[in-house]
């Protein structure tokens, strides 16, 4: 992770070809899909894709097979066998406990050595609420308020152990420097929580949070929020757009999403040429990075990634860095008025 225009891949739309049919083989189908994802992400890791977003479709009526698996678990599984690629699970904070979400992300970051991000995708709708026996939250303003407080609280847990809190001083029977441990004492509009994280977050300290535009502005506390997915295929809109400039607060970049399928380019345009031109135009328009949204592994493998590698958009497996350091590149490359 070392370049100036980070390229990520969303896994949510990825379908696996050749899945066998029949109920008796469903476990095999899931196994095949997981193996295919792992094989591909390891390949992306080697060729220099910057990060993968692990999507979330919490009920079987939406999303693909892969996105019904818990994204943080899939990220943990992938983290163990990759070295450089950032891994960004989608987490819907609705009806989750900030303590647990903070703990899960800190643990992922420990396993991945600082390569973890969090794509914040709030959904407090009735369909989600009834899974948990709760009431939906309908008002956007209310959702936004809950979510921002949730993120603030998660960050407070990440910071409850300062780096170097574990000292393991055998001589003096001191496992901790308790001066570096801080209790979270939070009383807000939506949460009242008191406690201490169960794990240090030494790898990145603060896990970078990617959020849809609505949730980025105005985040408070120590959380670092990166605006993502503010436009889908922006250069294809009638008046090719750069990132919107309404953000205030600790928003540090803007990432465009680009839907990629074998039909993305017009019939008379070569897909490889199309993707390279699209990315060049996003750079030109002032976007800080791109998140590809492919619908199959094959289109990535056969066309998109070779074309991006050839055009110099993919790193060649340079130094191992944190996702935060990668996103700092995004901050620097974000256009005027976009950074906090």
């Amino acid at each position, binding site marked *: 992770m070392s370049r100036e225009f980070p390229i990520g891949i969303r896994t949510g739309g990825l*379908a*696996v070809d050749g*899945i066998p*049919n*029949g*109920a*008796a083989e*469903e*476990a095999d*189908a*899931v*196994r095949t899909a*997981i193996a295919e994802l792992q094989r591909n992400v390891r390949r992306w890791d080697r060729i220099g894709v910057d990060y993968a977003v692990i999507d979330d479709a919490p*009920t*079987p*009526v939406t999303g*693909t*097979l892969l996105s*019904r*698996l818990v994204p*943080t*678990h*899939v990220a*943990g*599984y*992938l*983290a*163990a*066998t990759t070295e450089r690629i950032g891994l960004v699970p989608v987490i819907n904070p609705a*009806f989750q*406990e900030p303590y*647990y979400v903070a*703990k*899960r992300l800190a*643990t*992922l970051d*420990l*396993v991945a050595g600082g390569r973890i991000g969090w794509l914040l995708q709030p959904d407090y709708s009735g369909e989600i609420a*009834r*899974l*948990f*026996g709760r009431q939906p939250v309908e008002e956007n303003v209310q959702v936004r308020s809950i979510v921002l407080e949730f993120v603030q609280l998660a960050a407070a847990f990440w910071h409850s152990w300062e780096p170097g809190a*574990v000292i*393991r001083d*055998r001589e003096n*029977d*001191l*496992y*901790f*420097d*308790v001066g570096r441990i801080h209790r979270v004492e939070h009383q807000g509009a*939506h*949460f*009242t*929580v*008191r*406690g*201490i994280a*169960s*794990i240090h977050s030494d790898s990145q300290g603060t896990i970078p949070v990617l959020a849809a535009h609505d949730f980025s502005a105005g985040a408070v506390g120590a959380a670092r929020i990166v605006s993502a997915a503010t436009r889908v295929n922006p250069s294809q809109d009638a008046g090719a757009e750069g990132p919107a400039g309404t953000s205030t607060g600790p928003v540090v970049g803007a990432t465009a999403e680009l839907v990629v399928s074998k039909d993305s380019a017009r019939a008379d345009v070569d897909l490889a040429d199309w993707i390279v031109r699209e990315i060049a135009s996003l750079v030109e328009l002032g976007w800080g990075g791109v998140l590809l949204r492919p619908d199959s592994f094959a289109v990535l493998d056969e066309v998109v990634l070779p074309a991006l590698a050839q055009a110099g958009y993919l790193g060649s497996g340079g130094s191992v860095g944190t996702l935060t350091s990668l996103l700092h590149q995004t901050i620097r490359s974000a256009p005027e008025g976009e950074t906090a």
Partner: protein
Amino acid sequence: MSRTEPARRLHLGIFYPETSAVVDWSHPNAGPLNDFDTYRHTALKAQEGLFDALFLGEGALFPEHFGALSPHNVYGEPDRDTILAALAALTTHLGLVATINTAFSDPYDIARRLATLDHLSDGRVGWNVVTSAGALKGEYFERGDAVAHEDRYRRAEANLVAVRAILDAWPARGLSASYFDELIRADVRLAPRISVHSSLLTVDAPPVLPPSRQQRPVIFQAGESNDGLAFSSRYSDALFVPYQNAEDLGDYAHRLETQLARVGRSRASIKVLPRAYVIVGDSTDDARDQAEAYDSFVWRDSQVRQFLERAWGRTLPDLDLDGPLPEEDPVFDQRLDSARFTLQKIASSDRLRARIDGWRSEAAERGWSARQFVRAKHPQQGFFGTGEEVANSFISLFERGLADGFLVHNNIPKHTVDQIVDRVVPILQDRGVYPRRYASDVLARNLGAV
């Protein structure tokens, strides 16, 4: 010496402590407790030793002592699911057991997490069902104290039944067109939702994922109390118990069989795995010396002092550990009574005072200092000896039907598992009670739970 696979075989698991007064973090061979490398090492070594499973607990809090953070106790608890998901990618046969509480977790969430882990590991997941979140209190959570103490087993049962229903609800009919996902969507619309509306929990959820090769996670439970045992006898595939000697295990076996008979289950349908503290030495004397060194660490000054202060319900600034037990009056504060420090719950101030008086008399009569008293009250338990002696002790309990195997407590991170796998397992194999290869790469089949 048998070279064939044993019919009834001994099982081994490794319990990875997350915090404890009994983790020797100062041992020269101890790995850093919370580094992922220590988890990886432990899992791979356990798999090399054909262990059924790695077992992760949950719910410990940052150590505090009378409101102050304690610098002496090892602590750190990464998220269990995440560690197990990562280990699933690095192992092929080892079972992966997650502790998930039923107090602060919702059935739909638990079902999805377990189903995901079971698929990532391709059928190697177990669920240790706990009724509360260990020492975790409601103050950590948005929802607060969700379950009254007396309702915890009812809530656990409702939760477990709902989780199973969600996991089992995947439609059994085959699929019929080219795209798996489209078909799953089509089929699921025909499947019932799992709806529970009770005072204990509410859920209205569709099936989550197709079943794994294991069908459903193996259920583990502690089940020591009568309520716990009643729960376990209905739902558990395996039990882990704190007893390590024949007498205690015999009593437990009797209680268990009574409960199993009530629900029509045979003793053979459930595995009993005592938690085992193990120290392997080059000789009997060496093992004894190591055990003594370990015990001295466990009961180092800070721990003796903390024990007494908790027992007295107050800080004891003038306490001389080599002098008599404190003369100060104890202070009754029920919140400080904690089974984690082996003190039995005490119902009243008078009973606390009576107990402390009894301790003082006993210590005076025997001429024990405060330190000696505390050590005497905590006799060392476990399996200490050469590899052969430890194996013999295991085999003795196994052959008498008091244990189906052992959940080894990895008290010295990295070191303990190395010792067992290198020095005890080969003897168990030579004695014909332990396999020479995995029977399966599915946890339930290895454990004989199917």
